[in-house]
């Protein structure tokens, strides 16, 4: 079986604490993969390691058959990333930024310009072509990040919370675009807190909690007829349902 993403014992430690602990992932090509977990579980750290933003403490990974440590530039040519923090050139406008990114991925200038125009129009950024990215709202920055990640038609898309701060209309556009990319054979690796979106889009999921992988497989295998949020809570809370309530509102009476 050929995997687009494969990791063995991938670990990241900060101050002696394993934020990601011995992670072993196997993701097939063309999969829409949901990477789920509560806050602080290690999702963003995993994406940062797989995309070369931070170095793993130990373990190895192969992306599209390339070794993560040895062939980082070859990997970067083939992937697109929407990071958690919007790290963009804030003093550029969206067309300037996208054309720049396109050329950096080796697209001929005219192709980069054409794709920039199309992406800006499809993602609804055409009313802000003269606006500096600095002035963009969070949702606009998210959409621009996605444009930058897609301009070179990557084989894998890493998306860290792509729907955060995005309105319903843009969210719909993003979903459509992602579906299109997957149909063309791209692998999509997505983290999201919005489980409804994951349920609707993803074919496979994995759940990470306190740095450890709790589940990996097809979505049906996790949910088994139940709703995804229930299956997720059961797995993360180890079957325990927290007794919640406030004493002055009558809890425990």
């Amino acid at each position: 079986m050929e995997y687009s993403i494969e990791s063995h014992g991938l670990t990241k430690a900060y101050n002696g604490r394993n934020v990601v602990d011995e992670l072993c992932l196997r993701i097939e090509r063309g999969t829409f993969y949901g990477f789920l977990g509560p806050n602080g579980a290690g999702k963003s750290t995993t994406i940062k390691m797989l995309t070369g933003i931070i170095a793993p403490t130990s373990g190895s990974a192969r992306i599209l058959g390339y070794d993560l440590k040895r062939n980082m530039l070859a990997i970067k040519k083939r992937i697109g990333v929407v990071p958690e923090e919007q790290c963009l050139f804030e003093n550029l406008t969206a067309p300037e930024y996208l054309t720049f990114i396109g050329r950096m991925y080796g697209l001929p200038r005219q192709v980069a310009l054409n794709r920039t125009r199309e992406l800006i129009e499809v993602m609804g950024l055409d009313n802000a072509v003269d606006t500096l990215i600095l002035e963009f709202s969070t949702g606009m920055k998210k959409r621009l990040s996605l444009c930058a990640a897609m301009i070179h038609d990557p084989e894998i898309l890493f998306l860290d919370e792509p729907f955060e701060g995005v309105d319903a209309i843009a969210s719909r556009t993003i979903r459509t675009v992602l579906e299109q990319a997957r149909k063309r054979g791209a692998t999509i690796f997505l983290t999201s807190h919005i489980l409804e979106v994951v349920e609707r889009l993803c074919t496979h999921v994995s759940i990470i909690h306190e740095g450890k992988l709790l589940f990996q497989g097809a979505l049906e295998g996790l949910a088994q007829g139940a709703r995804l949020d229930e299956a997720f809570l059961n797995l993360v809370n180890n079957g325990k349902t927290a007794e919640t309530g406030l004493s002055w509102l009558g809890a425990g009476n």
Partner: protein
Amino acid sequence: MLHRSWALFALKWTMIRRSLERTHYSGYLILLVLFLLGTLASLGIGFLLYYLGSLVEKDKAFPALLLLLDGVVILYCFFYAWGLLLELQRTDLIDFRKILLLPISLPAVFLINFMVSLLGPLFLFSIPALTGLLWGLRPHMGNGIFPAGFLMALSFAVMLGAWSYYLRGRLAILMEHPRHRRLIFMLLPIGFIFLAQLPAIIMQVASKNAPGRTSGALLSFIEPHLISINQAVPFLWPAYGLWSVCTREALWVFPASIVAMWLVALLGLRMGYVTTLRHYMGTYASSRTAASVRPKRKMRPPITAKRIPFLAEDTSALVCGFYTSFSRHPHVRMLLLMPICFGLFVLFMHYSGAYGNTASSRAWIPTACLLWPFINFSFFMFNIFGIDTFSFQALQLLPAPRYKYLLAKNIAIAPIVLGLVSFFIAVSLFLADVPGGIILLSFLLAIQLFLLFSTIGNFISIKFPHRLHRDALRAPGRRLYMVINGFASTLLSTLLIIPALLCLLVYRYPPRFLTHQHGTWGLFLPAFLLTIITAILYWKTLPHAGDLLTAEEHLISVKLLGDRD
């Protein structure tokens, strides 16, 4: 009410304690040194003012005494304004936005914040200086000068504090919009620099118009206008009020000044409170959403699509991207605008004869013009990833060899630094009759300096990266670090310009063996060789710097993005 005030006090104290806990021990050491330096400076100014005060004779007090008092007030205002500029983006200790939902008296919070803003280091350091001045005036004016002086100073501090607090609030509202914020950050320092030069301009104009140009003639020229100016400008009221006590002429001016200052302070506070409250309650329309309501426009080919001759496609894109981003940074724009303002000032002073006309002093003008841009821009050249910090992760994700980032960063800054050098040299040509040889030498050395600063700057940028504020030349929350960094950058720049200076000295005081063998062209030989050696050094070290960047990019990313604005 009491327990709410106590809660506010506890909150304020916790916030101060937390901010101190986050400070590294070296920070405390530097703070201590700065405090000692401030105390020494304050005592020095105190002794100086004591001396000046004791010189004033009661019967000849006007206008020298009033001028002295005006000078003290203006000096205080200058330092206060400078502090205000540094503190411009400091949020209030207790943020209104966070407590608007709570049932707490908003005027009380506003007053607490105002009181905290009032008690700055300048307030403390001005006490010895004021005491010195009053002590100097005591023999002529009597002991009554002390209560009068301190009361006047307190009233003035409150008035100045209230209006600056109001101004800060207004600026904060303006700065909600990123472009307005950048404009303010760009224009304010230029304004302050201009203000700092204003006394020199005024004195120059006065000395030009005063017959005989002696200090006595100058005073008599100023005298008829002095009282009117002191009456009209509220910031000069304390000087006018205290002067009236000292001279015992129009004694009513003293209480009138005090009352007027408190009334003006109350008005400032009231306006500040209303503005702050309206702002937080959303009365002023926010312009943050302006981006989303602009009409759709046809996209023009952006600057990042341009091709640069002799460079690879990706390097071209990098240079265009870096140059555009760099040239839009407000501090870079300020550094570009400043020479124009300063040039106008120099031209004015030059034509008014302030600098004298000696040929020896003029001959050094090109040297100063050559060095200034490098000293000014060294901060950016030694921290090439710090200026557009948030883009670093975007760079990390790109599939380009890392040495190209360094090359492109260096090329992108070249038109700005070398352009400024050219501009300065052109101005110096206009100002002084500079020989063509010096001009040629300056251009040659400008290239050498640029290559040397880039070579060293690339390594420093990789080993010691730090995040700069997106709108100003400072690192968020690391003011002391920036002070040390500023000193280190200036020191290193001074060391790096020594070889170029030696070449200029060789040209000016030529050794016989150079001219003997090669004629006049021999004078250019050291500079030419130095430039060639520096170019080879740059070219040879660039791939190594690229390898180092590849190895350290994860670490740089952590350092740059560790804490956000």
